[in-house]
Protein backbone atom coordinates (compact mmCIF):
# COMPACT_ATOMS: atom_id res chain seq x y z
CA UNK A 1 0.00 0.00 0.00
CA UNK A 2 1.91 3.01 -1.28
CA UNK A 3 1.13 6.65 -1.99
CA UNK A 4 3.43 9.01 -3.84
CA UNK A 5 3.09 12.72 -4.55
CA UNK A 6 5.62 13.75 -7.15
CA UNK A 7 6.55 16.25 -9.85
CA UNK A 8 7.90 13.52 -12.17
CA UNK A 9 5.77 11.50 -14.57
CA UNK A 10 4.91 7.87 -13.74
CA UNK A 11 4.96 4.62 -15.72
CA UNK A 12 1.52 3.05 -15.33
CA UNK A 13 2.59 -0.20 -17.00
CA UNK A 14 5.59 -0.70 -14.74
CA UNK A 15 3.46 0.00 -11.66
CA UNK A 16 0.78 -2.47 -12.78
CA UNK A 17 3.41 -5.17 -13.36
CA UNK A 18 5.09 -4.56 -10.01
CA UNK A 19 1.77 -4.73 -8.19
CA UNK A 20 0.29 -7.80 -9.90
CA UNK A 21 3.47 -9.90 -9.87
CA UNK A 22 3.88 -9.56 -6.10
CA UNK A 23 1.22 -12.17 -5.30
CA UNK A 24 -0.17 -15.09 -7.36
CA UNK A 25 -3.43 -14.74 -5.43
CA UNK A 26 -4.05 -11.54 -7.40
CA UNK A 27 -6.44 -12.26 -10.26
CA UNK A 28 -7.56 -8.71 -11.01
CA UNK A 29 -5.95 -5.30 -11.25
CA UNK A 30 -8.22 -2.30 -11.77
CA UNK A 31 -6.41 0.85 -12.83
CA UNK A 32 -7.28 4.46 -13.38
CA UNK A 33 -5.14 7.00 -15.21
CA UNK A 34 -6.21 10.64 -15.25
CA UNK A 35 -4.73 12.97 -17.82
CA UNK A 36 -4.90 16.72 -18.51
CA UNK A 37 -7.56 17.63 -21.09
CA UNK A 38 -7.06 20.55 -23.46
CA UNK A 39 -10.58 21.79 -22.75
CA UNK A 40 -12.36 22.68 -19.48
CA UNK A 41 -15.67 24.49 -19.05
CA UNK A 42 -15.58 25.26 -22.77
CA UNK A 43 -12.18 26.96 -22.71
CA UNK A 44 -8.88 25.89 -24.22
CA UNK A 45 -6.38 24.89 -21.51
CA UNK A 46 -2.69 25.25 -22.32
CA UNK A 47 -1.24 24.52 -18.89
CA UNK A 48 -2.22 23.37 -15.45
CA UNK A 49 -0.48 24.00 -12.13
CA UNK A 50 -1.23 21.57 -9.33
CA UNK A 51 -0.75 22.84 -5.79
CA UNK A 52 -1.07 20.64 -2.73
CA UNK A 53 -0.69 20.60 1.05
CA UNK A 54 2.51 18.65 1.75
CA UNK A 55 2.10 16.35 4.73
CA UNK A 56 -1.69 16.34 4.68
CA UNK A 57 -1.82 15.10 1.08
CA UNK A 58 0.07 11.89 1.81
CA UNK A 59 -1.96 11.22 4.98
CA UNK A 60 -5.19 11.84 3.14
CA UNK A 61 -4.29 9.41 0.34
CA UNK A 62 -3.19 6.77 2.87
CA UNK A 63 -6.49 7.19 4.71
CA UNK A 64 -8.38 6.67 1.42
CA UNK A 65 -6.53 3.38 0.84
CA UNK A 66 -7.26 2.30 4.43
CA UNK A 67 -10.98 2.97 3.96
CA UNK A 68 -11.01 0.96 0.74
CA UNK A 69 -9.25 -1.93 2.52
CA UNK A 70 -11.90 -1.95 5.23
CA UNK A 71 -14.69 -2.25 2.66
CA UNK A 72 -13.24 -4.58 0.01
CA UNK A 73 -10.70 -7.38 -0.22
CA UNK A 74 -7.77 -5.35 -1.42
CA UNK A 75 -4.50 -7.28 -1.70
CA UNK A 76 -2.48 -4.22 -2.65
CA UNK A 77 -3.10 -0.66 -3.84
CA UNK A 78 -1.17 2.32 -5.13
CA UNK A 79 -1.90 6.02 -5.58
CA UNK A 80 0.50 8.28 -7.48
CA UNK A 81 -0.47 11.94 -7.89
CA UNK A 82 1.56 14.55 -9.70
CA UNK A 83 2.00 18.19 -8.66
CA UNK A 84 3.52 21.23 -10.37
CA UNK A 85 3.17 22.27 -14.00
CA UNK A 86 1.33 19.96 -16.40
CA UNK A 87 0.19 20.23 -20.01
CA UNK A 88 -2.62 18.57 -21.98
CA UNK A 89 -1.96 14.82 -22.45
CA UNK A 90 0.23 14.76 -19.32
CA UNK A 91 -0.73 12.15 -16.77
CA UNK A 92 -2.04 13.51 -13.43
CA UNK A 93 -3.03 10.57 -11.31
CA UNK A 94 -2.70 6.79 -11.16
CA UNK A 95 -4.82 4.58 -8.90
CA UNK A 96 -4.26 0.81 -8.85
CA UNK A 97 -6.09 -1.85 -6.89
CA UNK A 98 -5.13 -5.53 -6.88
CA UNK A 99 -7.60 -8.13 -5.65
CA UNK A 100 -8.44 -11.78 -6.18
CA UNK A 101 -11.58 -10.85 -8.09
CA UNK A 102 -12.57 -8.09 -10.47
CA UNK A 103 -15.67 -6.85 -8.67
CA UNK A 104 -13.69 -5.88 -5.56
CA UNK A 105 -10.89 -4.33 -7.63
CA UNK A 106 -13.28 -2.16 -9.67
CA UNK A 107 -15.28 -0.99 -6.66
CA UNK A 108 -12.23 -0.11 -4.57
CA UNK A 109 -10.55 1.71 -7.47
CA UNK A 110 -13.58 3.86 -8.25
CA UNK A 111 -14.18 4.51 -4.55
CA UNK A 112 -10.58 5.70 -4.16
CA UNK A 113 -10.88 8.08 -7.13
CA UNK A 114 -14.18 9.50 -5.84
CA UNK A 115 -12.67 10.10 -2.41
CA UNK A 116 -9.44 11.52 -3.82
CA UNK A 117 -11.49 14.03 -5.84
CA UNK A 118 -13.28 15.35 -2.76
CA UNK A 119 -10.86 14.81 0.16
CA UNK A 120 -7.24 14.99 -0.98
CA UNK A 121 -5.83 18.54 -0.72
CA UNK A 122 -4.91 19.29 -4.34
CA UNK A 123 -5.90 22.42 -6.26
CA UNK A 124 -5.68 23.03 -9.98
CA UNK A 125 -5.00 26.39 -11.59
CA UNK A 126 -5.38 26.40 -15.35
CA UNK A 127 -4.05 28.67 -18.05
CA UNK A 128 -6.64 29.66 -20.69
CA UNK A 129 -6.56 32.29 -23.48
CA UNK A 130 -8.37 34.65 -21.05
CA UNK A 131 -5.71 34.20 -18.34
CA UNK A 132 -5.22 31.85 -15.42
CA UNK A 133 -8.00 30.70 -13.11
CA UNK A 134 -8.53 28.29 -10.24
CA UNK A 135 -10.57 25.25 -11.22
CA UNK A 136 -13.91 25.13 -9.39
CA UNK A 137 -14.92 22.01 -7.46
CA UNK A 138 -17.80 20.09 -9.06
CA UNK A 139 -21.00 19.16 -7.29
CA UNK A 140 -20.96 15.97 -9.41
CA UNK A 141 -17.84 14.93 -7.49
CA UNK A 142 -19.61 15.39 -4.15
CA UNK A 143 -22.49 13.31 -5.47
CA UNK A 144 -20.13 10.60 -6.73
CA UNK A 145 -18.70 10.33 -3.23
CA UNK A 146 -22.11 10.08 -1.56
CA UNK A 147 -22.92 6.88 -3.47
CA UNK A 148 -20.46 4.89 -1.35
Amino acid sequence: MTVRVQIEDFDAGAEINMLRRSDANIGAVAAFVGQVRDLNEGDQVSELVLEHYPGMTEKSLQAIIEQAKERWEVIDALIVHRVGKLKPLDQIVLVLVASSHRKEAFAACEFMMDYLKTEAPFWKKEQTPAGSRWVEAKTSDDEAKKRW
Partner: protein
Amino acid sequence: MTSLIKVLYFARLKENLNYSTEDIDLPTDVANVAQLKAYLAQRGEAWANLFNGKQSIRAAINHALVDNNAQIKDGDEVAFFPPVTGG
Protein backbone atom coordinates in the same frame (compact mmCIF):
# COMPACT_ATOMS: atom_id res chain seq x y z
CA MET B 1 -3.03 30.97 29.06
CA THR B 2 -2.24 31.65 25.42
CA SER B 3 -2.62 29.32 22.43
CA LEU B 4 0.04 29.63 19.80
CA ILE B 5 -1.05 28.02 16.55
CA LYS B 6 0.26 27.83 13.01
CA VAL B 7 -2.16 28.79 10.23
CA LEU B 8 -1.72 27.86 6.55
CA TYR B 9 -3.58 29.14 3.49
CA PHE B 10 -3.74 27.38 0.12
CA ALA B 11 -4.69 28.00 -3.50
CA ARG B 12 -7.10 30.91 -4.05
CA LEU B 13 -6.89 31.90 -0.37
CA LYS B 14 -3.12 32.13 -0.41
CA GLU B 15 -3.29 34.35 -3.49
CA ASN B 16 -6.09 36.60 -2.28
CA LEU B 17 -4.53 37.11 1.14
CA ASN B 18 -0.97 37.15 -0.14
CA TYR B 19 -0.18 34.96 2.84
CA SER B 20 0.80 31.30 2.92
CA THR B 21 1.58 30.71 6.59
CA GLU B 22 1.67 32.57 9.89
CA ASP B 23 1.84 31.98 13.62
CA ILE B 24 -1.11 33.31 15.58
CA ASP B 25 -1.30 33.86 19.31
CA LEU B 26 -5.00 33.13 19.80
CA PRO B 27 -7.18 35.39 21.96
CA THR B 28 -8.82 33.43 24.76
CA ASP B 29 -12.27 33.72 23.16
CA VAL B 30 -11.14 31.90 20.00
CA ALA B 31 -11.48 28.18 20.71
CA ASN B 32 -12.90 26.60 17.57
CA VAL B 33 -12.75 26.89 13.78
CA ALA B 34 -15.82 29.13 13.46
CA GLN B 35 -14.38 31.55 16.01
CA LEU B 36 -11.00 31.57 14.25
CA LYS B 37 -12.72 32.39 10.94
CA ALA B 38 -14.61 35.29 12.57
CA TYR B 39 -11.37 36.51 14.11
CA LEU B 40 -9.58 36.45 10.73
CA ALA B 41 -12.54 38.15 8.98
CA GLN B 42 -11.88 41.27 11.06
CA ARG B 43 -8.47 41.83 9.50
CA GLY B 44 -9.72 43.77 6.47
CA GLU B 45 -11.66 43.46 3.24
CA ALA B 46 -9.78 40.57 1.60
CA TRP B 47 -10.06 38.60 4.84
CA ALA B 48 -13.71 39.46 5.38
CA ASN B 49 -14.56 38.39 1.81
CA LEU B 50 -13.06 34.96 2.42
CA PHE B 51 -14.10 34.31 6.02
CA ASN B 52 -17.55 35.93 6.23
CA GLY B 53 -19.20 32.56 5.70
CA LYS B 54 -20.41 33.22 2.15
CA GLN B 55 -17.55 31.37 0.50
CA SER B 56 -17.03 27.67 0.73
CA ILE B 57 -13.85 27.34 2.79
CA ARG B 58 -12.57 23.99 4.06
CA ALA B 59 -10.53 23.66 7.24
CA ALA B 60 -8.06 21.05 8.46
CA ILE B 61 -6.48 20.67 11.89
CA ASN B 62 -3.21 18.75 12.03
CA HIS B 63 -3.79 17.40 8.50
CA ALA B 64 -7.34 16.12 9.10
CA LEU B 65 -10.45 17.72 7.57
CA VAL B 66 -12.66 19.28 10.27
CA ASP B 67 -15.90 21.25 10.49
CA ASN B 68 -16.64 24.62 12.10
CA ASN B 69 -17.18 23.13 15.56
CA ALA B 70 -13.73 21.57 15.78
CA GLN B 71 -11.76 22.73 18.83
CA ILE B 72 -8.37 24.37 18.40
CA LYS B 73 -5.64 23.82 20.96
CA ASP B 74 -2.18 25.13 21.59
CA GLY B 75 0.35 23.91 19.03
CA ASP B 76 -2.22 22.98 16.36
CA GLU B 77 -1.58 23.41 12.67
CA VAL B 78 -4.75 24.85 11.14
CA ALA B 79 -5.19 25.10 7.37
CA PHE B 80 -7.80 26.92 5.29
CA PHE B 81 -8.40 26.17 1.62
CA PRO B 82 -11.08 26.03 -1.11
CA PRO B 83 -12.86 22.77 -2.00
CA VAL B 84 -10.24 20.45 -3.47
CA THR B 85 -9.87 19.85 -7.22
CA GLY B 86 -7.24 17.14 -7.65
CA GLY B 87 -7.40 13.91 -9.58
